[in-house]
């Protein structure tokens, strides 16, 4: 079988920098799925974008190599020829469905654009084809969806529209660049199953770029592993997963969070944090006179308690109100309902009266790139809370900052540097140090690992477990990633649309979920882990 796409010795460099991809050789056969895996910064996406020459040509250089598509070297064909191939023979799905659709165009217009371009379809014919495509990707009532704008669709629907656009001209190759990273687990599963089914139907070759190995195991025929732009290993999926040769592959494969939280001290009779009947409303519309017309009930009657030294995991899909609960506890969002820390009512305090309590309850945010002020040094960032809560001489603060940095496993000398000099994992450690330096009793962890690579996630989880044991901290761990939640949580709260679906000991919820929604969530999340290397999309 001759390869459909043949990449030989491809090197890519951006001006003035070292090569981001070095001597990459890959081949993609018709109707097969090749997965390109690696951590962020390993050159996966750059390699994929280079196939259609979508990288900014003003800055990119290709020092060596060739990309042959049916014998034609794409690196050397004129732009005009490339435009004929793009979207027609080779299509692409991007990672971020929120930004890869034009917000000002309707679904029909966006799908119709590629139809008109390559097939010359217009008017009723194009409309008919759009409906077919939307139907194909599993969008209910496609006729009514034609005139929708992207903001009227959910994340999963947007990704389906993207897929419909990519498939519009029945391409030979589909490049899927992290197609499901931005989606919820249940949606993720649906989209991937859809892709696999469509691949069978059209006999497309798929280049799947992902950092999620469980997806790879389920859907790929072959796997290529990239480490810092160098191809370290490639092979059949089954072989690679059972007998990884390269140490980097082994490290990637071994990166599974522990399956249970560490032992916790026996819960005392009085919980440290007690929440009863928490409600959060957002005003979504106002009349001309400023009277509230409509509200969105983001959190409805949520109650839970958190014992000292333990972790309560809050899970749910996006929009379920997990983050809002965290913000409400810290009074970053107005809320109603009783909140007690060690028996003291906090919910009736105003911002000023609440300020002393902020030292006891701290938060770590999801995005380590956004939560650190870019213009302050690490020492200023970490020491800022100390100035408020422990006014004292600068030397004392310095010593505490150094201690906090050591606690999170960073070099104390790092305090003189600025956030942009650190990687995502290091930044998240800094964010944890900022919370830790105040010696809080409770830390709200709002998706602290979701922006990180799996191997880095595990390090952060280890760090959190270690800190909990050392300082007897209580965590409120908010996440959509059940594998991570399982590694930390003693208790679990499952949320759906602002309401508690299930609440109880983590072990029990994981092993014997009571509500159907929890079962669905668990099966979607753990779906890939439980499947064997058997390929479901093997051609008959």
């Amino acid at each position, binding site marked *: 079988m001759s390869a459909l796409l043949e990449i030989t010795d491809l090197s890519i460099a951006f001006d003035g920098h070292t090569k981001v991809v070095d001597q990459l050789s890959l081949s993609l056969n018709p109707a097969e799925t090749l997965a390109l895996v690696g951590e962020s910064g390993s050159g996966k996406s750059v390699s994929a974008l280079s196939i259609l020459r979508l990288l900014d040509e003003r800055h990119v250089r290709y020092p060596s190599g060739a990309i042959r598509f049916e014998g034609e070297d794409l690196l050397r064909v004129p732009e005009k020829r490339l435009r004929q191939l793009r979207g027609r023979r080779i299509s692409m799905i991007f990672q971020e469905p929120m930004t890869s659709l034009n917000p000002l165009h309707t679904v029909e217009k966006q799908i119709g654009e590629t139809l008109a371009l390559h097939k010359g379809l217009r008017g009723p014919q194009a409309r008919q084809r759009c409906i077919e495509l939307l139907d194909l990707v599993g969008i209910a009532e496609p006729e009514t969806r034609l005139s929708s704008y992207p903001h009227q669709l959910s994340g999963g629907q947007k990704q389906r529209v993207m897929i419909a656009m990519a498939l519009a001209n029945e391409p030979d190759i589909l490049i899927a660049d992290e197609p499901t990273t931005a989606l919820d687990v249940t949606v993720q599963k649906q989209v991937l199953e859809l892709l696999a089914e469509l691949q069978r139907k059209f006999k497309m070759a798929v280049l799947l770029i992902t950092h999620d190995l469980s997806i790879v195991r389920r859907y790929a025929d072959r796997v290529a592993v990239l480490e810092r732009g160098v191809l370290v290993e490639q092979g059949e999926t089954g072989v690679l997963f059972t007998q990884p040769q390269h140490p980097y592959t082994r490290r990637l494969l071994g990166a599974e969070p522990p399956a249970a939280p560490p032992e916790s001290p026996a819960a005392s009779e009085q919980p440290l944090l007690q929440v009863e009947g928490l409600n959060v409303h957002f005003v979504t519309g106002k009349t001309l006179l400023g009277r509230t017309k409509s509200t969105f009930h983001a959190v409805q009657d949520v109650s839970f308690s958190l014992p000292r030294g333990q972790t309560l995991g809050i899970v749910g899909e996006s929009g379920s109100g997990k983050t809002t609960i965290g*913000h409400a506890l810290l009074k970053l969002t107005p809320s109603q309902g009783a909140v007690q820390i060690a028996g003291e009512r906090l919910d009736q305090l105003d911002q000023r009266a609440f300020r002393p309590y*902020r030292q006891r309850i*701290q*938060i770590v*945010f999801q995005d380590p790139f956004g939560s650190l*002020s870019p*213009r302050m040094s690490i020492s200023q960032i970490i020491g*800022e809370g100390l100035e408020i809560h422990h006014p004292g001489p600068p030397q004392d603060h310095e010593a505490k900052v150094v201690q906090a940095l050591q606690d999170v496993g960073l070099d104390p000398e790092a305090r003189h540097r600025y956030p942009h000099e650190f990687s995502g994992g290091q930044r998240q450690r800094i964010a944890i140090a*900022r919370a830790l330096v105040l010696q809080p009793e409770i830390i709200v962890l709002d998706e602290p690992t979701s922006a990180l690579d799996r191997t880095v996630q595990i390090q952060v989880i280890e760090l959190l477990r270690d800190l909990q044991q050392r300082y007897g901290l209580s965590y409120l761990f908010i996440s959509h990633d059940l594998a991570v939640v399982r590694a930390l949580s003693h208790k679990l709260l499952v949320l759906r649309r602002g309401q508690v679906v299930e609440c109880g000991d983590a072990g029990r919820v994981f092993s014997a979920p009571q509500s159907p929604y929890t079962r669905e969530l668990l099966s979607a999340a753990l779906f890939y882990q439980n499947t064997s290397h058997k390929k479901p999309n093997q051609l008959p």
Partner: protein
Amino acid sequence: MRMAMLSPIQRRRLTNFRRNRRGYWSLWAFILLFGLSLIAELIANDSPLLVSYQGTLYAPVVQSIPEDTFGGFLPTETDYRDPFIQEQIEADGWMLWPPIRFSYNTINYQLEVPSPAPPSAENWLGTDDQGRDVAARVIYGFRISVLFGLTLTFFSCIVGVAVGAIQGFYGGKIDLVGQRFLEVWSGLPVLYLLIILSSVVQPNFWWLLGIMLLFSWMGLVDVVRAEFLRARNFEYVRAARALGLSNRLIMFRHILPNAMVATLTFLPFILSGAITGLTSLDFLGFGLPSGSPSLGELIAQGKANLHAPWLGVSAFVSLALMLTLLVFIGEAVRDAFDPRKN
């Protein structure tokens, strides 16, 4: 030694500033010119710097000496340009003159041609139509323009940033009312108001400053407000609130630095706007009291005396030089505060 005392961020800003060669040299050129203009009394003056007469030393620049000290007839301030007095002093001592022997309001009565007189060894840039030395007036005019511009910019910044910060940070009704007020206020015909106001009061430096300040602060509000509106939902601002920082500290420490680049980018424009504002008022005759050294008045004279190009050219060159230097410096400052440059 000096570098060792600065914090790393300041050191990096300094390096970035220096890296913009054009701005760096502009700053030195500007400091030199401004420094020289600050000691304008020692460069262009109608009194000598030092007088030795009958063995006694006098410093007429800083002290007032009656004419009869030097053998004159009147007990009033000495006119050192009077040939009679000069003779008296030269006969029994000496005088040390500044390089330009005219102050901004000194009238040269000994012109050999009718004023405006063309450039000569005595009047380097010629005289204006009242026989006053143009070089001296340019030096004093430069000083007053820069001082006016800097003061106005300083106060405009304080008011503009404060208003923009409050509007952007609190949003809602405060923002709504503020924006409507700004719309009305910026709709006022500024020049007419200035003309009316300056006909009601006798304008001097501070009056003009106050009147122009009433309107000049608005330019900054929009950029600062936009920056605050954007930044108040940033995660690190939320993180700061979770740490227990007060609103004021959050605004100052976390959001203002974001707005600083926008503000600093605007500064050269405000500064040059202030200078041109003052110049145009002077040009129209509604500015500083008559007789004050001002570049605007010099331009007006140049326009009235097209046959004396040295008037217009001097005013143009000095204005252009000043504004160009300021903009170059402003660019370098903006580079220095940009955290993404390293």
